């Protein structure tokens, strides 16, 4: 297990470095930053001066190294727009996004896994078809539109929940439900197919032959194996929610990382965008690493591969 962890750690590190380099370079290459920084009235000399001042004339790897060295120490620079360091801005926004994504993941698992299990137990029944229909519709609805619809229905018409801001827990209910509903279909489908496969396995028959009750067979033997691919999916979904919350936060006007990212992108607030991109990438890398570990813990066969 230890060897496995170390190997995975190494891969994660390699990917992390590469991704951060890619994320870094992408922004530098997509446009001349110096030009946009200098402003619309700048002369050629102004632009050149800006370039030197911001260190944009150095080779890209040097720039990357400079930036990385500072970043690892926690210094992401200052925002071009807000009177604050990038670190402060992100620090304020992160808890909100984390809470939102966490709740969203919870919702998707609560909706998806039980539905998937029940659908697998009675394939072809009305509940199976109901679950599949729900899944298919859920995957087709754009989540920002779903958010708006919920605002109209539960916020404006029924006034059950507040429609913007993030001050109280009620503010989080609708947005996290929207997030959860988008990823529940995938969870449900995977659980269902995983369960169907597992339920027809020989070791389930052995379990019954030992005289185990159906509940025992289901929860101890079947679910344990069926849930393995769902863990990997859940980590990907969580990563998606962390980075994709941009849309939900915009719809519900919540001051999370996504909203910050959107504002910074619209205002070309370069350092902030840079930092958030990196953060998003790191989330993915380390989430994948964690899910690999959990997978190996759940399925002993993986530890050898």
């Amino acid at each position: 297990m230890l060897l496995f962890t170390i190997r995975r750690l190494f891969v994660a590190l390699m990917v992390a470095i590469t991704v951060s380099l890619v994320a870094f370079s992408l922004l530098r290459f997509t446009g001349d930053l110096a030009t946009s920084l200098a402003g619309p009235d700048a002369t050629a000399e102004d632009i050149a001066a800006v370039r030197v001042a911001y260190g944009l004339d150095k080779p890209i790897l040097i720039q990357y190294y400079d930036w990385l060295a500072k970043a690892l120490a926690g210094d992401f620079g200052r925002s071009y727009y807000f009177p604050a360091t990038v670190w402060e801005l992100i620090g304020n926004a992160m808890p909100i996004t984390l809470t939102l994504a966490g709740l969203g993941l919870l919702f998707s698992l609560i909706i998806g896994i039980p539905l998937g299990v029940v659908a697998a137990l009675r394939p072809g029944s009305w509940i199976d078809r109901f679950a599949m229909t729900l899944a298919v519709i859920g995957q087709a609805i754009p989540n920002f539109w779903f958010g708006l619809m919920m605002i109209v229905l539960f916020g404006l018409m029924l006034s059950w929940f507040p429609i913007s801001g993030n001050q109280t827990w009620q503010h989080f209910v609708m947005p996290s439900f929207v997030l959860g509903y988008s990823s529940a279909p995938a969870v449900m489908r995977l659980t269902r197919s995983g369960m169907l496969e597992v339920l027809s396995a020989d070791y389930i028959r052995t379990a019954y032959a030992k005289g185990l009750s159906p509940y025992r067979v289901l929860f101890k033997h079947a679910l344990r194996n069926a849930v393995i691919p769902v863990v990997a999916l859940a980590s990907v979904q969580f990563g998606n929610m962390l980075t994709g919350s941009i849309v939900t936060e915009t719809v519900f006007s919540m001051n999370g990382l996504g909203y910050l990212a959107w504002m910074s992108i619209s205002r070309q607030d370069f350092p902030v965008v840079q930092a958030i991109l990196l953060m998003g990438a790191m989330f993915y890398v380390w989430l994948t690493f964690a899910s690999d570990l959990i997978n190996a813990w759940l399925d002993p066969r993986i530890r050898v591969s």
Partner: protein
Amino acid sequence: MDHNGKTAPTPGPFALPRGTSDPRLDPAVLLAPSPFAKTARRFLGNSTFLIAGTIFGLIVLMALLAPVLAPGDPYVQNLGNRLVPPAWYDAGSWAHAFGTDGMGRDYLTRVMYGAQVSLMIGVSSALISGIIGSLLGVTAGYFGGRVDMAISFIITTRLSLPVILVALAIVAFVGASLTLVIVVLGLLLWDRYAVVMRSATMQARSMDYVAAASAIGASTPRLVFSEIMPNIVNNLIIVATFEVANAILLEAALSFLGLGVQPPTPSWGLMIAEGRDYLLFDPWVIVIPGLALSILVLSVNMLGDGLRDISAPENRN
């Protein structure tokens, strides 16, 4: 004793059944449907595929024929005629079946033209990402070894990038336009293609070895080819349908955030964003394009599902 030095078999315990018939003369075989008819039946027999195909086909038709079928012009504003509700409301009329938006433009027309945008972006970016991803995947699967390791690393790196953030950032810094959205989505969404094509190619490769090993001649190269190619092409088409849906939804999100297609081009996502101000009193401004998006994506997804059902080995004769 025969010439091999072996004794001939005894009349055996049991006689061979007499009069084995020649399959070529068997009426059941003669009257069987042709391969083409069989394929056609498979497609048409799948209800998911039929329904989805019909809906999708209608939307495509609507997009293609929008200039001809649409009742008005999607760009012509009429500020004196803003926010007229759709025909099924009391205040509405059939002159504007879907009403008018915040600038007085006929909504039905904009919805129809919006289909063009969604379809064009969806299909084009799926095409671009399909080419990139397939090339990467097939190369990795075919060559294996170091090449595979390198490409797999690239795929993992791409998977670790937050797509929507990257897309937004690029579009913002370069300048939003329809073409750019297509290019960016195409350059970012190739991962699933790569993964699927890689494993399909690897499977096909192992079949090659099997065929070579079994020198009995049971599988000729042509047979192997006719087994591999359909399998790969099948997977490709199925992935493509889901990626089209994915691209359509992403473009809608980008346009909603203001960083996709720019006004006044009618994009459903953009129309939803523009309708946000009227959420309280005229929700239909948002409901209609959202429904359109959902129906389109639903039909594409169902197409993919139907295709997957059809091409699954259980359904092969």
